[in-house]
């Protein structure tokens, strides 16, 4: 793998990231709740030889408000469990990484580890995890297990100002740690099938993880043998200091949301200064791609009008040609970014533009590989398969 090559991934969500995307003539809103729709998108991403797709998820209905339902009838509402969706698509794809979103706040760490390890088996080593936490009151009310205070007004909030977010990111870091321990809790050669002694496993190679923290404890070992990648890829979106620090505890790929090259440079520097595991840093961008910049901007304006508001995002919104986007990606790369997670504004339109125009353009510039060079998601990212942390240990 050439160091000059960018990593490219795509974030799949509903009909696309613009809230009115489902009303675009190219969209197929009636198919959103079919497996075929998602399989088609992933096949397209795989045609473009992208490293992976992420799949969004939440434990609440989508809303345009900061918290709680908004009563709107004109935007996409409802979504599938992302791990199951990824697993449903896995047998229909061969090489592309599948990275579902799973929250750490209301789930059982033990189940999270099992389900992602299983996805790694179903996909033959292509599983990843987009770690997310769920700090909203409306989400907590769906589980009734913890108290979450109300947040302040939308724009005024800095995560760092809220004690609850310190708690939730701390917990998320603990969940990642315990999930990683569970993935390592079976050594690779634990299954021995030794007929002479009647033993199926060598129990010296199965390990209790014995995690005890302020929020939960887990004994282990995992019920699932060590996944094909050893450690499926762990990724997270981060906007500020608290999540940067969380990512430094154990994330492989960190998505950031700079709006220009200077911001990108500053964020990468901050992440490097925090130290820790040194994740690969990708930038997120919402993309409208057309043959001319004018066409892309008009499409964006049309959707904004349909939605009744200008679409705002945590990430920069790019509207232009694939060539212009290629310029931007290569320009920002100089700041230390290793790849991008592109959020297509409309599906499949902007995904097709990525795979059919942007990717060939990047190849022409020597910035993207021609084909897959590895069989696993870690492999696509140039990450080795790690040995179990317990290998050789007697615990």
């Amino acid at each position, binding site marked *: 793998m050439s160091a000059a090559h960018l990593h490219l991934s795509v974030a799949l969500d509903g009909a696309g990231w613009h809230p009115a995307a489902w009303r675009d003539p190219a969209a197929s809103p009636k198919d959103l709740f079919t497996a075929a729709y998602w399989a088609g998108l992933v096949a397209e991403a795989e045609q473009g030889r992208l490293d992976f797709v992420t799949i969004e998820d939440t434990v609440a209905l989508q809303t345009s408000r900061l918290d709680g339902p908004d009563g709107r009838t004109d935007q*996409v509402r409802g979504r599938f469990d992302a791990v199951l969706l990824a*697993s449903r698509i896995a047998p229909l794809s061969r090489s592309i990484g599948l990275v579902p979103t799973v929250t750490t706040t*209301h789930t059982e760490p033990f189940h999270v580890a099992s389900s992602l390890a299983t996805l790694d088996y179903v996909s033959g080593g292509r599983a990843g995890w987009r770690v997310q936490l769920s700090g909203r009151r409306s989400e907590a009310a769906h589980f009734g297990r913890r108290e979450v205070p109300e947040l302040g007004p939308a724009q005024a909030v800095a995560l760092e100002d809220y004690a609850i977010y310190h708690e939730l990111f701390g917990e998320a870091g603990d969940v990642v740690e315990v999930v990683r321990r569970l993935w390592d809790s079976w050594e690779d050669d634990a299954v021995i099938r030794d007929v002479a002694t009647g033993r199926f496993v060598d129990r010296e190679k199965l390990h209790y993880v014995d995690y005890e923290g302020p929020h939960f404890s887990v004994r282990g070992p995992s019920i699932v043998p060590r996944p094909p990648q050893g450690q499926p890829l762990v990724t997270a979106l981060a906007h500020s200091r608290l999540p940067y620090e969380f990512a430094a505890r154990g994330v492989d790929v960190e998505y950031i949301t700079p709006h220009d090259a200077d911001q990108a440079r500053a964020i990468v520097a901050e992440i490097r200064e925090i130290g820790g595991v040194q994740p690969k840093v990708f930038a997120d961008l919402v993309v409208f791609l057309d043959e001319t910049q004018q066409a892309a901007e008009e499409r964006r304006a049309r959707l904004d009008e349909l939605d009744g508001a200008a679409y705002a995002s945590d990430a920069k919104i790019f509207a232009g040609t694939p060539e212009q986007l290629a310029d931007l990606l290569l320009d920002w790369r100089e700041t230390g970014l290793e790849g991008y997670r592109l959020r297509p504004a409309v599906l499949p339109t902007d995904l097709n533009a990525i795979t059919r125009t942007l990717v060939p353009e990047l190849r022409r510039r020597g910035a993207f590989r021609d084909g897959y060079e590895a069989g696993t998601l870690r492999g696509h990212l140039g990450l080795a398969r790690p040995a179990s942390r317990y290998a050789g240990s007697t615990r």
Partner: protein
Amino acid sequence: MKQVILAAHFPGVNNQTVWSDPASGSQIDFSSFVHLARAAERGRFDFFFLADGQRLREQRGRIHDLDVVGRPDSLTVLAGLAAVTDHLGLAGTINATFNEPYELARKLATLDHLSGGRAGWNVVTSSDAFTGENFRRGGYLDYSERYARAAEFVRTVRELWDSWKAEDLVADPATGFFASANAGEFAHHGTFFDIEGRFNVPRAPQGHPLTIQAGDSDEGREFAAAHADAIFSRHGTLEDGKVFYRDVKARVVANGRSPDSLKVLPGVTFALGDTDAEAQENADHVRRQQVSPQTAILLLEQVWNRDLSSYDPEGPLPEIDPLVSEEESISRGRTRLTRDPLETAARWRALAEEKRLGIRDLIIEVTGRQSFIGSPGTVAEQINAFVQEDAADGFILVPHLVPAGLDEFVDRVVPLLQERGVLRTEYGTSTLRGHLGLEGGA
């Protein structure tokens, strides 16, 4: 004539699964699941079935290493299987104690969408503190509260499934109306769950994915009679099966339901051969594979509740009596072999004496003889007879080999059931409820 319902149980973490045979494949590779599911679909089975256990089993305080160890997350593997099968129902065992309704309702509704209405859920209620050590809540649940929680769990999950009506999802770009303003609204304020808000998966193709129950106590049977669509039982012999069948169907009627609305499905094993005699030989061979000398001692320990590692597997039963203790069990993470160890020990001693059996031969004799042994014709005849005589509505077949353990049954027994007109030759229905002839099916 009643139709025979058939389900395929993936051979898993128990001593029925023979891993020492050269034909035994991976218990975890996805290809093994695909092989068994495709065989079941070729045989026009109603559904594929996965058992569950959320803690590796232990014996004498150490991880039990004599049986298959390791399994996948049920629903994740079933979602993958939905991609490689077209009609087969996909049912997973999921614990009501170590899950939350919102999350599980979403997962089951998602699986139902992704499979076009083929999802099923076997509700189990284990609550031991041993398993609880892997979970946030720990082992807090009292035995007596398990079914109370499970019943409220099932009720709550169904409220969530019902929170989206079919007509709530419109997705019409012409009018700009995607979904009703109150789609997914729910509020459940109960003893175990106090939750409210919006459910976020549109109504599933089956409305309510199939609910199965496995549990044998009085409370377990009542729970099934009140809430379940099918019951997975241990009563797989003709006489025992009839008694259980009558008992459960009477409870269903007492709950104001039609007796046909709950299907009785014993878990059964089988051994085939060209002739009945050859089948018996095969059965004996498999039994010896299942009960290795080490396994014989271990199963004995589960009844005796003592360390018997110094006993000779070919020698006589221990003279010492079982240790009777409610709290301390030598084996953890599995269902008990007996509720009355002293009575069981007395019975086994008498049998060992009468037939002059050593420990291993006795264990082979008293545990898990195959339910159906014979030529394909004999087995087809027996299966059909059990169903027509109301010992069952069908069976959950537990093969002893991964991944090919069902192949011979599908190739040789299934055509005979089809000839008798008691098993479909083509799927005429598309959903799991539809296959079972249940309300809400298609």
